C-alpha cells in the first residue's frame, strides 16, 4: 500500500523544467512605490496626461486601502505579508528602441522562447498565430500586425494603444474592472507597465487566434500586465494567453488585470494556460498570481467564454467572471486547476446575470496532489430583472494521495423566480485499486495517472483551441510527471 502511494508521490515530485534566467541587462526603477515612482513609470512610457491622472488616482486609492489593511484575506490561501515597498515596479530589457522585425530581437531573448518551446519564428510561419510577446514589461515582438491591420483589427501592446488609440483606451479602460474594484486591481492600475490591447471592429471575424506569451524575468520584479479586449458588434475573436517563468527563490507578485468588452452579437473566447513557477517541493519560492479577470457582455446576444488551465504559481487567486448585461448574452467558464506540492489555488468565477434570458455555464475541475490545496469559489447572481436566466454549474475535484485538499464554495444569489440554477459537484480520488487495475493490464502508474487525469479534464480541454489543448495536456502531464499522449 505504502509503495503505491510512494510511486504516485514520486511522479508528483518533479522539478520545474523551465527554470532558467536569461541574462539581459534590465532597466529598472528603484524599489518601492510612491507618486514619484508612478510619475517615473508614466514618463518612461511617454504616456498622455489622462493615463498619468488615472494611475495617480488608482495609486491614492490603493495607498488608502493599504493603510487600512484592506488587502483581501477572505480567500482560502495562506502566505506571509507582502512588503510592497521592497518591490521593483518597472523593469524593461535595455534594448529600448523597439525592434521592427524578429531579426532585430535580442537573440538571447529568442533563445529563451525557444527553450520554452515557442519559437516565435515557427509560430509565425507554421501556426498562423500572431504573438505579442511580453518579456518582463515591454513588448518585444508583435507579429502579423499588417495582416490584422488590413481587417481593421488592432492588436498591439498596451503602451502603444495608449499612445495611438487613446480614444478607445479612454472609453474602455476600467469600464469592466475599475481601479476601485479591489486591492490588487488598484495596485495594477497604478503601476501596470504593459500588456496587450485588442480591438475587433464591427462585423469582423478575427481569422487567427491571437496569442500573448508573458514571461517574468528580471529578479524581484512584480509584473503587472493589463489586457483590454474590445469586440465590436457582430465580431469574433479567440485570444490565447500562455505563460511560464524561470526558477527563482523569492516569491514574486503578479497582479494582472484583464478586461473584456463584447458588444451586440460579439463573441470573445479567452483561453489561458498558466504555468508560472510553483515553488519547490518544500513550498519555497513561486509566483503569487493575484489576477482580476472580468468580461462584460455589454451587447445583446453577446458571448464571453473563459477557458483556463492553471498548473503553475505558488498561489493562485483568480476568478474570471462575466457580467451578463445584454439580453440573451452568454457567459462560460471552463477551468482546470492543478495544485501540487505546496501550491494553493483559490479560483472560480462570478456570473452576474443582469439582462433577460442570459445564460451561463460553469465547469470547474480541480486536481490536488502532494500537499496542494485547491478551492473552487464561485458566485452565480441572478438579479431582479434577469428574467428567464439560467445557470448550470459543475464542480469536480480529483485528489491524488492523502495529504492534499479540495474545497468548494459555491454562492448562489437568485432574485428572480423565473430563473433556473443548477449546481452539481463531485469529489473523487485516484485510488490504489484503480492504479493497480491499470498496471495489471500492462500500463504503468504514470500512464494510469495521466489517463485518469486527462479523462477528468476532457470536458475543459475540448473548449481549448486544438494546439493549446495539446499543450495543456502536456503541461498537466509534466506537472504530474508522465507521458501524456
Amino acid at each position, binding site marked *: 500500500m505504502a509503495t503505491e502511494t510512494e510511486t504516485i508521490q514520486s511522479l508528483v515530485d518533479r522539478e520545474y523544467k523551465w527554470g532558467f534566467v536569461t541574462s539581459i541587462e534590465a532597466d529598472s526603477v528603484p524599489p518601492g512605490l510612491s507618486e514619484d515612482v508612478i510619475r517615473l513609470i508614466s514618463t518612461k512610457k511617454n504616456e498622455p496626461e489622462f493615463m498619468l491622472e488615472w494611475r495617480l488616482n488608482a495609486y491614492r486609492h490603493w495607498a488608502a486601502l493599504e493603510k487600512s489593511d484592506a488587502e483581501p484575506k477572505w480567500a482560502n490561501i495562506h502566505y506571509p505579508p507582502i512588503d510592497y515597498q521592497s518591490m521593483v515596479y518597472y523593469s524593461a530589457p535595455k534594448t529600448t528602441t523597439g525592434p521592427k522585425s524578429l531579426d532585430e530581437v535580442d537573440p538571447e531573448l529568442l533563445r529563451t522562447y525557444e527553450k520554452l518551446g515557442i519559437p516565435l519564428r515557427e509560430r509565425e510561419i507554421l501556426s498562423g498565430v500572431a504573438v505579442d510577446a511580453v518579456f518582463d514589461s515591454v513588448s518585444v515582438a508583435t507579429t502579423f500586425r499588417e495582416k490584422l491591420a488590413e481587417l481593421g483589427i488592432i492588436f498591439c501592446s498596451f503602451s502603444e494603444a495608449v499612445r495611438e488609440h487613446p480614444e478607445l483606451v479612454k472609453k474602455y479602460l476600467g469600464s469592466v474592472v475599475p481601479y476601485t474594484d479591489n486591492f490588487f486591481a488598484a495596485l495594477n492600475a497604478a503601476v501596470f507597465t504593459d500588456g496587450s490591447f485588442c480591438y475587433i471592429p464591427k462585423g469582423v471575424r478575427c481569422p487567427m487566434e491571437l496569442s500573448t506569451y508573458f514571461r517574468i524575468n528580471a529578479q524581484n520584479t512584480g509584473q503587472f500586465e493589463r489586457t483590454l479586449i474590445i469586440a465590436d458588434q457582430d465580431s469574433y475573436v479567440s485570444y490565447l494567453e500562455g505563460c511560464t517563468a524561470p526558477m527563482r527563490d523569492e516569491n514574486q507578485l503578479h497582479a494582472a488585470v484583464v478586461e473584456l468588452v463584447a458588444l451586440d452579437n460579439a463573441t470573445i473566447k479567452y483561453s489561458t494556460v498558466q504555468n508560472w513557477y510553483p515553488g519547490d517541493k518544500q513550498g519555497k519560492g513561486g509566483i503569487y498570481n493575484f489576477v482580476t479577470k472580468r468580461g462584460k457582455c455589454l451587447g445583446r446576444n453577446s458571448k464571453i467564454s473563459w477557458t483556463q488551465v492553471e498548473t503553475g504559481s505558488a498561489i493562485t487567486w483568480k476568478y474570471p467572471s462575466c457580467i451578463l448585461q445584454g439580453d440573451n448574452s452568454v457567459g462560460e467558464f471552463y477551468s482546470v486547476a492543478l495544485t501540487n506540492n505546496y501550491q494553493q489555488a483559490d479560483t472560480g468565477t462570478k456570473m452576474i446575470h443582469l439582462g433577460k434570458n442570459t445564460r451561463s455555464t460553469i465547469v470547474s475541475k480541480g486536481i490536488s496532489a502532494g500537499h496542494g490545496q485547491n478551492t473552487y469559489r464561485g458566485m452565480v447572481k441572478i438579479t431582479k430583472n434577469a428574467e428567464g436566466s439560467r445557470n448550470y454549474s459543475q464542480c469536480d475535484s480529483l485528489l491524488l494521495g492523502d495529504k492534499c485538499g479540495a474545497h468548494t464554495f459555491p454562492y448562489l444569489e437568485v432574485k428572480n423566480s423565473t430563473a433556473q440554477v443548477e449546481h452539481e459537484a463531485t469529489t473523487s480520488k485516484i485510488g490504489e485499486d484503480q492504479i*493497480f487495475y491499470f*498496471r495489471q493490464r*500492462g500500463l504503468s502508474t504514470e500512464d494510469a495517472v495521466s489517463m485518469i487525469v486527462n479523462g477528468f479534464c476532457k470536458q475543459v480541454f475540448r473548449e481549448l483551441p486544438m494546439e493549446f489543448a495539446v499543450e495543456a495536456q502536456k503541461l498537466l502531464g509534466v506537472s504530474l510527471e508522465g507521458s501524456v499522449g
Partner: protein
Amino acid sequence: MLEIKNLHASIEGREILRGINLSVNAGEVHAIMGPNGSGKSTLAHVLAGRESYQITAGEVLFEGKDLLGMLPEERAREGVFLAFQYPVEIAGVSNMYFLRAALNTIRKHRGLDELDAIDFLKTVREKMKILDMDETLMNRPVNEGFSGGEKKRNEIFQMAVLEPKLAILDETDSGLDIDALRIVADGINRLRGPDRAMALVTHYQRLLNYVVPDFVHVLADGRIVKSGGKDLAHELEQKGYAWLEETAEPVKSGVSVR
C-alpha cells in the same frame, strides 16, 4: 509455466499464505478452491503483484523467470492476467481507450505493431459478440455504471483481447446469474488452449460444471491441503470444507515458518 515454491505472504504483519507449492503447465486449467479466508484471493493478488502484500519466503517462477521480482505491469506484459473479483470503476477513461492502450503496451512488449483505432475495433468486435456485450459499452468509462454481471463479462472480454499466457480468474462466478454464468464460462472455454494456462479461484463448484478443470486444489489456512482431479470439486460440494480443514496441520501463530 508457473512454479510456486513454498510461498509465504502476509499483510500488515498477518501471515495469509503459509507455504504454497503448485505447478501449472501450459494447457492446464487448475481450480483453486477453499473456504472464506483460506488465502485464495491473496494468492491471486500476490501472483499479479499487489504491493500491499509482503512476500516473506518462497519463490515463483513464470516461464523460468522470477515473477516476484517483476513489477505488476511487467508481469502483465509477460502474459499474466488477473480477472478481478471486484473490477474498479474508472471515470472519464473509456473502455475502448483503456483496452487499446493496454493491448498496445502488451503488443509492443511482444514485438508486435500497435493497432490503430480501426484495426482495434475490428479485433474486439468479434470478441464482444462471444461475450454478448453491447458495443456501446466500449464508449462508456471503464466499468462505470456496469452491472455486476457486465463487469465480470468485461473482465473475460479483456482477457480475450489481451490473450494472456496465464489467466488467473478470481471468483469470476460470484454475482452472476445462471445465464451470465453460461456466457462467461463459454468465453473462458473458448480461451482454453495448449499454450494457455488458467487458474480459477472459486468458492463454489458451480462454475466448474461449465469449465471443467484438469486439477482441483483445496486451500485451507494458507496452504494447499488437498489436490486431485475434477471429482474433488464434487466431493467438496457434498461434504463442505470442514473435513479438510481438520486434517490440515495446525500452524502456531507467531511462529516463523521461514
